[in-house]
Structure formats: structure tokens, C-alpha cells
């Protein structure tokens, strides 16, 4: 009898009260590459003009390593009926990205320009020039954990459910397009990416790092497509 009590209380304490450290550990245990498929429709033909990149600055838009913050918590410890619910918010860190994310953003932009731009990309002199500054990445990556422990004197029922996602990533950039030193446009452009919800019995929280990297990859892809679309309107 005493054993059941001890085991029951330990389960409640260990699982219900497991904090951000264990979540952070799970998320930091996984790494992945920013990568995506270029599936936008190729430009039918190039117009003959060229575009060069004047400056391409990527600020330190990601924290050094993945973080987890507790947003809210609810615990109902009634000994015979115990319920808990925790909401966390995580954020992707650069340590979890295997490739150099700054280089990836630049290279993938050039790939997109070559693929869908009506102007050809030029490394040297170009007819038009674009200055880009990637200034911010916003990421909403929630994790929800809830569970219950019902103690019925000679038996107990225990269950815990974790779900994570969806991950919403937004990459924000300033783009300035110039021709012969004259500004054609200057605006802030956004790229959005979303990765699905992870849940179920086989959920491994390490996969959530992959989901965050996936959302970030898709957001970069969306941003690149927007910038090239803007250039094509010239």
C-alpha cells in the first residue's frame, strides 16, 4: 500500500512537474539542415537584363541555441485526482541548424532568382542592383503538455499527453532595388512558413526541432519567391 502511494506521488512529481530543462534537452538533442525543393514555376524566358546583389546582410536573427519558455501552467493536486497542464513556447537556435543559415539564405535567393526571375543574376555589374537585409525571424512554436493521475486507493490511473505545433515562422527582410543609383523601390517583405502539429503516442520531441527547421526553410523559400516576384514587376 505504502509503495503504491510512493510510486503514485513520484509519477505525479516527476512527470507533471517536469520543467523546461528536459524539453530543452530533447530539442537541443536534434539537428537538421535548412533545405527545400525549388518548385516555383520557372521563368519562361529571361528578358535580357541582369540583376546584381549590392549587399546581402543577414543579422543574427536566431539565438545561439534552442530555448524553451514556460508560458502558463495549471496543476490541480487533489491527491485522489491530480490534473496538470503546461504550455511552453520554444524558439529555434542556430546550433540546431547544421548548415550555415546565413549562407543558405543568400544561396537559395540566388537559386530562386536564376529560376524564376525575368532578369539574369550577375555576379559583377548588373543593370539593376538589390540590397537585402534579413532583419528578423519570428517563430511561434508551442508545446502543450497535459496529464492526469487518479488514485483509487488500491489502483491508480495515469496518463500524459503532449502535442507540439504548429510551428509558424516569419522571416522579415528589407529590400531596396536600385537602377543607376536611383531607388526603384524600398520595402519590407515577409516570408511565412508553417510545419504541422506533432502528436500521438510515438511523439519524439526531438522531431520538433526538425519541424522548426522545416518551417524556417519554408519561410525562407516564401521570402525568396516574394522578393523575386517584386523584382519581376519592374
Amino acid at each position, binding site marked *: 500500500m505504502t509503495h503504491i502511494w510512493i510510486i503514485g506521488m513520484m509519477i505525479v512529481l516527476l512527470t507533471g512537474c517536469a520543467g523546461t530543462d528536459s524539453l530543452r534537452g530533447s530539442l537541443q538533442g536534434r539537428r537538421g*539542415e535548412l533545405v*527545400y*525543393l525549388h*518548385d516555383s514555376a520557372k521563368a519562361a524566358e529571361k528578358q535580357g537584363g541582369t540583376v546584381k546583389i549590392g549587399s546581402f546582410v543577414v543579422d543574427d536573427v536566431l539565438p545561439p541555441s534552442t530555448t524553451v519558455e514556460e508560458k502558463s501552467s495549471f496543476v490541480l493536486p487533489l491527491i485522489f485526482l491530480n490534473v496538470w497542464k503546461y504550455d511552453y513556447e520554444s524558439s529555434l537556435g542556430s546550433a540546431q541548424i547544421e*548548415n550555415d543559415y546565413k549562407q543558405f539564405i543568400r544561396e537559395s535567393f540566388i537559386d530562386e532568382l536564376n529560376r524564376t526571375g525575368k532578369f539574369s543574376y550577375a555576379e559583377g555589374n548588373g543593370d539593376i542592383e538589390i540590397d537585402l537585409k534579413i532583419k528578423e525571424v519570428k517563430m511561434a512554436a508551442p508545446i502543450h503538455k497535459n496529464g492526469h493521475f487518479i488514485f483509487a486507493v488500491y489502483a491508480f490511473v495515469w496518463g500524459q499527453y503532449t502535442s507540439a505545433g504548429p510551428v509558424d515562422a516569419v522571416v522579415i527582410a528589407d529590400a531596396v532595388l536600385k537602377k543607376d543609383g536611383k531607388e526603384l523601390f524600398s520595402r519590407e517583405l515577409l516570408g511565412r512558413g508553417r510545419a504541422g502539429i506533432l502528436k500521438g503516442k510515438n511523439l519524439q520531441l526531438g522531431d520538433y526541432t*526538425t519541424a522548426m527547421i*522545416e518551417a524556417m526553410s519554408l519561410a525562407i523559400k516564401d521570402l525568396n519567391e516574394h522578393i523575386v516576384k517584386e523584382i519581376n514587376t519592374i
Partner: protein
Amino acid sequence: MVANFSELSHWWTLLGIAVMLVCIRGQRPRPISTGNQILRPVSLVLIFFLCACAEPARYIVISEDAKDVRWEHTGQRFICLSKEDARNTPDLLALYTKSDIQKYEGKQKDVGDPIAGVLYHLIRADYHAANELLHKHEDHIPAYVRTMLKADLAYENAEDNVPPDKVVKLYQDAFELQPCAIGRTIIQLRIRQLRYRR
């Protein structure tokens, strides 16, 4: 195309276990007749055969103009052939389960066509043999099949571990050449699977 991601083989296994439990439970309290003593093991064997037969194939070869493509399992991968190439390999098309593949193995004698040869090894999950044959007949296999097979075989680690970004690059090459929309959709799915591969 019906995108149904249910894990069919798991359901069959669960059904088998459920029937087994019913049989075992039934054996305890009641005396069993001789007929039942024979029938029960036979029915169990049949159920296990059913489970094995319904196991979905990993790679399914389809034709560009296939109308009833059933996508039942996230592990299923399609190789889409152009109408002309599909005409040369009619027996390889739409082998959805492992038992379909076994039947095909039973009747197939000689694989003269290089595409059929590589696909034969691929659907049997003999990726090293498929890779060898692909390299041997590389010049005789159309680019849209060759690029897709190279990417798939890289995914399956037919060669030394290929880093994920290289596999995505191979899929990118294949994407541009796919003759049917499902081929392109499947590539997107494969890249997602590649990300979450452990």
C-alpha cells in the same frame, strides 16, 4: 488519387491479434470439439497469411495515365513511367502488395528491358542490385526515370551515406523531369520524410 494515410498492415496485425485472443480465450473454459481443434490453428495460419499478403509494397510502379492510383500508406513510393515506357513493362505496374510482387517474381523469366530490370530489383527492395544495374544501363534509361531512381536509391542508402542536402539536390533534378503530377507530389513528401528520418 485518394490520399489515405492509414497504416493498413497495422490494422491487419491488430485484427489478427484480436482474433487470436478470441480463440485463446475461447479455449479455456469450454471443452473443444475435434473439429474446432483443427479449425482454430488453421484459421490462425490463414490470418497470418492474410497479414503477410496485405503488407503494402514500398515502391509501386505506375503509368503516367493511371487513373486509380491508391495512396494508402505514407511509406508508399511511386515511380511514374511515361505511357510508352509503361507499355514495355505492363507486368510491373500497380503491384500494391508484397504478395503481388511475389506473384510477379513467380512468373517473370527474363528481364531484357533495362528499366524493367532496375525496377524489378527496386520493388523487391534489393537496392544494391538496383543501383548496380542502374549504373550499368545508365545510358539506356530515360533521364526522368534515371534521376528519380538515383534519388530514391540515395535515400535508401544504396551507396555510402549520402548527406540529406545531396539527396534533396537529386530529388530537385528529378522534380523538373517528372511526367506526372503525382511524381512531383511524391517528391515533396519524400523530402519531408527525409527531414524526419532518424
